[in-house]
C-alpha cells in the first residue's frame, strides 16, 4: 500500500453531513460508537440547508384530527403506492418524536398561539403538518444537528480533553471508493480537498447519507454536491438501487434570469395561499385534478379560497396537489402556449396576502426574488417552472435498520429508496432524514455490536487501486475538459430523460451515456491536487454517469406513468407495474442492469386505513382479497382482474367516454405517438369502470379520520369527470390530457 495515505480507524463512517448524516452520526455516537463524519463541503453547508417549507410530523398541534395513520395514508397516496409501506409507517409514527427532540437541542420552530410548534399546510398533506421556521426550516435543522454534534464534542472534551475523541468532522473530504473484505464493508477511501492528501478510513460500518443526483440535470434546484456519490459508491460495492426512474421535478423553480433557472421557490408559497395562473390569468390547476385525488380537492375557486380559513368544511385548492401532478400541469400549460414570457407560469402571492404578511411568512423568497430577479413578490407575481429536485429512487434498504444488501453498509435520507414511492410529498424529506438517519445510526451500532472481535480488514491492493483511479484525471494529459462532458450530460438528461419521457428519446440517452462513459476515461484535469475543482468534477462524473445509466434504463423499462416517472407512450398507472420494484445493480462490465422484484406487500391493518374504492385505483383485486368492505366479484372486479390486457365488453358502460378521450388524445398528440392512444383509452376505460365502487362502505379504521368531507363528495364525481374530459381538449401533451380524463 502506498505510504502517502493518512489512515484513521472508526467504528462508523458517515458519508454526508446533511440532515440524515448528522442524525445518523449523533445516534451512533449516542450508542457509544466512535464516528467520523465526512463532509463534501464545509460543515453546515449541506443541501439540507436549502429545504424551505418544513418537516412533516403528525403532532396534531394545529388540527387535532391529525395522527400517524393520516400521515401514512397521505404518504402512500403521494407516492402512488409504490412506497415501501413499512418505511412509510415508521416514518409517520416516529416523525413527531424526531421533531420534538430537535427542541431539546435548541431548535426554535415557529409557534402556535398556545406555544406549541406551529404547523403549516403543504401539498398532499390532509392537515397542517409541517413544523417550520419561516421558509428556512432546513437551515434550522442543519444548524440544530450541527450544534448537537458540537454538544457531544464538548462532552468528550470535558471527559477526554479532546473535542474530537469520539466524533470528528472531516470537512471538505470526498470518498471515492468503499472498501470490502469479502462481502463486508471494511472501510472507505478518499481525499482531502485542502491539499489532495489521500485518506483511508478503516471501519466496519459505513452510513451513506450523500443526498441526491440533481447535478446530472441542467435545470435543477440541487447544489454542486448532488452528484449521486452515495448511489454510485453503493453500486460499486455491490449494493442495489431501486426505482431510479422516479425523479421529482419540483413544480416551482425560478425560470428567470437564466443564471438562477431551477432555484427553488418553496411550496409554502402555495401552502400560504399562493395560486398558479397561466398567461390568460386562469387558475389552471382546477382542470388537472386526477381521478385518484378528486375527492380531496376543491372544484371551484370559491371553495378553494374558503379552505384556507375553514378547512373542515371545504376541500383543498388544487395548487396543493402532490408535486408530480402540479409539475406536469405547468409543463402542459407552457407547451400549450399559455406560459409566461420566460417559459413558466405565474405564481401569485401578491394579490392574496398583504405585503407585510408575505415578508413575514416568506422572508427568503422575498429576498431571493428581490436580489436575484428584481421582482418584488409582494407587488407582482413570480414566474416559475419545473426543476429537477429530488430522487425518490435510491439504495435498497431494510426499513427498520437502514441496512443495504452489503453487510455493514447503511443508507438514509435521499440516497435511500423506498420511503417515498414514486413521488415524495413536500415536508416528508426533512422528517425522513431524521427518522431514518437515526435508524441508520442505530442499525450501524447494532451491527458492530454483533461483530465483536471479528472486524473486517482493508486489503492493500484495493487501496492502491482506489488511489490509481483517483489520480487518473491528473495524470492523463491532453484529454478532454471535464466541464464539457458534464454540461453535455446535463443537457442530455434534461432533454431526453426529463419530466415527460418517450421511448426513443430515453433509448437515445442510453446510447449517449455510453459515449460519455468512454470520454470520461480520457479526461484531463490540469493543475495540482490542492483544491482543484476540475479534478473533483472528473471524479464526480464517474458517479453521475453510473447513476444516469440507472435512471435512463429504469425509465425505459417501466411502462407506465406513476409519480416522478411519466411516459408519454404509457400515460397511466398500471396495477401490475405497481407491484414491481426495478432493482438496479452493476454487471461485469460495470454497467447498470435491471431486475424486477416485488414491492413489499402492505399489511392488512395498514390497507384498512383506506377505502377499498380508493385502493382499487392502485391495486389488483387479488391484492385486495379478504379486506373488509370487499364485495364479491362484480363488473369492476373483472375489469381490474384483466389489468393490462385488452379491455373487452365489460367496459361498455364507459366506452362512450373512452372514445371521447381517444379523440381528444388523437387531436392533441397528432402524429407523434399514434399507438399510444389505444392504450390510453383502454386504461381510461378501466379507471372509469372502477368509479361505481366509489360509494363503497368506509372501512372501520377510516372512521376516526374525519370522514364526513370525503363521503359527501361522492355524488359530484360524474360531473367532475365530465368537466375534466372537456378540460383536456385544450391540452397538447398527451400525458397530461390523460391525467385529466382518466
Amino acid at each position: 500500500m502506498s505510504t502517502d495515505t493518512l489512515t484513521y480507524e472508526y467504528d462508523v463512517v458517515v458519508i454526508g453531513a446533511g440532515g440524515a448524516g448528522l442524525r445518523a452520526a449523533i445516534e451512533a455516537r449516542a450508542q457509544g460508537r466512535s464516528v467520523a463524519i465526512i463532509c463534501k463541503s464545509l460543515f453546515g453547508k449541506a443541501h439540507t440547508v436549502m429545504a424551505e417549507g418544513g418537516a412533516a410530523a403528525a403532532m396534531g398541534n394545529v388540527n387535532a384530527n391529525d395522527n400517524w395513520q393520516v400521515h401514512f395514508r397521505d404518504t402512500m397516496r403521494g407516492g402512488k403506492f409504490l412506497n415501501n409501506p413499512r418505511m412509510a409507517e415508521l416514518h409517520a409514527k416516529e416523525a413527531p418524536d424526531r421533531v420534538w427532540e430537535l427542541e431539546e437541542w435548541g431548535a426554535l420552530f415557529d409557534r402556535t398561539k398556545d406555544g406549541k410548534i406551529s404547523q403549516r399546510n403543504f401539498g398532499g398533506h390532509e392537515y397542517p403538518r409541517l413544523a417550520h421556521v419561516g421558509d428556512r426550516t432546513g437551515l434550522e435543522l442543519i444548524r440544530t444537528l450541527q450544534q448537537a454534534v458540537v454538544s457531544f464534542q464538548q462532552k468528550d472534551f470535558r471527559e477526554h480533553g479532546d473535542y474530537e475523541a469520539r466524533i470528528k468532522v472531516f470537512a471538505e473530504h470526498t470518498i471515492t471508493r468503499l472498501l470490502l473484505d469479502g462481502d463486508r464493508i471494511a472501510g472507505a477511501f478518499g481525499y482531502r480537498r485542502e491539499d489532495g492528501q489521500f485518506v483511508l478510513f478503516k471501519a466496519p460500518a459505513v452510513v451513506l447519507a450523500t443526498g441526491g443526483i440533481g447535478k446530472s440535470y441542467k435545470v435543477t434546484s440541487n447544489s454542486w454536491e448532488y452528484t449521486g456519490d452515495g448511489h454510485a459508491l453503493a453500486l460499486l460495492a455491490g449494493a442495489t438501487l431501486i426505482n431510479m426512474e422516479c425523479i421529482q421535478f419540483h413544480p416551482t423553480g425560478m425560470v428567470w434570469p437564466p443564471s438562477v433557472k431551477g432555484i427553488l421557490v418553496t411550496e409554502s408559497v402555495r401552502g400560504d395561499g399562493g395560486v398558479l395562473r397561466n398567461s390568460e390569468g386562469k387558475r389552471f390547476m382546477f382542470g388537472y385534478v386526477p381521478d385518484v385525488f378528486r375527492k380531496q380537492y376543491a372544484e371551484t375557486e370559491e371553495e378553494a379560497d374558503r379552505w384556507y380559513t375553514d378547512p373542515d368544511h371545504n376541500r383543498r385548492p388544487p395548487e396543493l396537489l402532490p408535486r408530480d401532478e402540479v409539475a406536469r400541469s405547468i409543463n402542459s400549460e407552457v407547451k400549450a402556449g399559455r406560459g409566461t414570457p420566460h417559459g413558466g407560469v405565474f405564481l401569485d402571492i401578491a394579490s392574496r396576502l398583504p405585503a407585510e404578511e408575505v415578508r413575514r411568512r416568506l422572508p427568503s423568497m422575498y429576498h431571493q426574488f428581490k436580489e436575484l430577479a428584481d421582482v418584488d413578490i409582494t407587488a407582482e407575481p413570480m414566474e416559475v417552472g419545473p426543476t429537477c429536485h429530488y430522487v425518490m429512487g435510491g439504495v435498497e434498504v431494510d426499513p427498520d435498520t437502514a441496512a443495504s444488501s452489503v453487510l455493514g453498509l447503511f443508507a438514509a435520507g435521499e440516497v435511500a429508496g423506498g420511503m417515498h414511492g414514486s413521488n415524495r410529498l413536500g415536508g416528508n424529506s426533512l422528517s425522513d432524514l431524521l427518522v431514518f438517519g437515526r435508524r441508520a445510526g442505530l442499525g450501524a451500532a447494532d451491527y458492530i455490536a454483533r461483530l465483536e472481535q471479528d472486524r473486517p480488514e482493508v486489503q492493500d491492493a484495493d487501496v492502491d487501486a482506489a488511489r490509481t483511479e483517483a489520480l487518473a484525471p491528473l495524470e492523463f494529459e491532453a484529454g478532454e475538459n471535464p466541464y464539457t462532458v458534464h454540461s453535455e450530460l446535463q443537457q442530455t438528461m434534461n432533454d431526453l430523460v426529463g419530466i415527460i419521457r418517450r421511448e426513443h428519446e430515453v433509448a437515445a440517452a442510453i446510447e449517449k451515456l455510453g459515449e460519455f462513459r468512454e470520454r470520461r476515461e480520457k479526461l484531463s484535469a490540469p493543475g495540482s491536487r490542492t483544491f482543484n475543482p476540475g479534478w473533483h468534477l472528473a471524479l464526480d462524473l464517474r458517479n453521475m454517469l453510473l447513476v444516469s445509466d440507472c435512471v435512463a434504463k429504469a425509465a425505459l423499462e417501466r411502462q407506465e406513468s406513476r409519480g416522478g416517472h411519466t411516459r408519454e407512450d404509457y400515460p397511466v398507472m398500471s396495477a401490475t407495474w405497481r407491484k414491481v420494484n426495478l432493482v438496479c445493480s452493476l454487471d461485469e462490465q460495470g454497467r447498470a442492469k435491471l431486475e424486477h422484484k416485488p414491492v413489499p406487500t402492505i399489511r392488512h391493518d395498514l390497507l384498512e386505513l383506506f377505502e377499498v374504492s380508493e385502493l382499487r385505483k392502485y391495486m389488483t383485486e387479488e391484492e385486495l382479497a379478504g379486506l373488509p368492505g370487499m364485495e364479491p366479484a362484480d363488473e369492476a372486479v373483472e375489469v381490474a382482474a384483466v389489468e393490462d390486457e385488452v379491455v373487452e365488453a365489460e367496459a361498455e358502460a364507459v366506452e362512450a367516454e373512452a372514445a371521447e378521450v381517444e379523440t381528444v388524445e388523437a387531436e392533441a398528440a397528432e402524429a407523434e405517438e399514434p399507438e399510444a392512444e389505444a392504450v390510453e383509452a383502454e386504461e381510461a376505460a378501466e379507471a372509469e369502470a372502477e368509479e361505481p365502487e366509489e360509494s363503497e362502505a368506509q372501512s372501520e379504521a377510516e372512521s376516526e379520520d374525519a370522514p364526513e368531507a370525503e363521503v359527501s363528495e361522492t355524488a359530484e364525481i360524474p360531473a367532475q369527470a365530465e368537466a375534466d374530459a372537456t378540460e383536456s381538449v385544450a391540452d397538447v401533451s398527451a400525458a397530461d390530457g390523460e391525467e385529466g380524463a382518466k
Partner: protein
Amino acid sequence: MSYKAKFKVWRGDAGEGSLEDYGVEVNEGEVVLDIIHRLQATQAPDMAVRWNCKAGKCGSCSAEVNGVPRLMCMTRMSTFTEDETITVTPLRTFPVIRDLVTDVSFNYTKAREVASFEPPAELKPGDYRMAQVDVERSQEFRKCIECFLCQNTCHAVRDHEDNKDHFAGPRFLMRVAELDMHPLDTRERRNEAQEDHGLGFCNITKCCTEVCPEHIKITDNALIPMKERVADRKYDPLVWLGNKIARRK
C-alpha cells in the same frame, strides 16, 4: 445583452499569488459567481472557489469583490458598469488555501467553545411551550448562514491577528446572545460572553451588520443588548445577590 467583462482574480496558494487578468463573457441576469464558474469551465479549470446553493442560503461563496466582503452568488453583474474591472479576492482575515478559498477553521474552533443549549432538566420533549414573540429574538440570529463575512470584516480580528485567541467574533458573540435570549435556556452566559468570548473587544462600529447578507442587526440586536446585560450584571449588587441565591435568569 452579453458583453465581455474585465476581471482580476487572485490566484495562488498559502505561499504566494497574484491578481490575474481575464476577459470573460457576461450575460443578462448573471452574478459574480456565474462568471467565476465560466472562467473555470473555459479558461481556468483549476480555479478554486467554494460554493453550494447559489441562492444565498448556504454562505459558502464569500469573497471580496472590489474590496467589499460579499457573497458572490448574490452580487449581480448589473451593479457594475460594463467597462469596470471587477476584482475578486479571497477573504482577507483568513489564511488562503488556494485562489478564492480560505482556511475558515478559526470559526469552527470558536463555535465549539460556545456552551450548548441547556434546557430545564425536567422538561420532556414535546412539552416545550414558548410564545412566538419570545422566540423571535433568537430566531433572527438563527437566520445566520455562517458565511463568516462578519468575522472577516470585524477589524478586532481583521487588523489584529493576536486578538483571535481571545475574541470569538461577531458571529459567535451573536450565538451567545441567541442562547441567552432563548426562552428556555438555563445557563448563565453573561460572564462567559465577557470573559471567555471577548465581548469587550467589540467597539460597536457595526461593520458586521453592514456586510451581513441576511440583514441581521448583529450589533443593535445581539451585541449591544449583550453588553448592556453584562454591564447590568457586573455592577448591580442586587442581581449579583439574587443570582447567588437562586440560579435563574
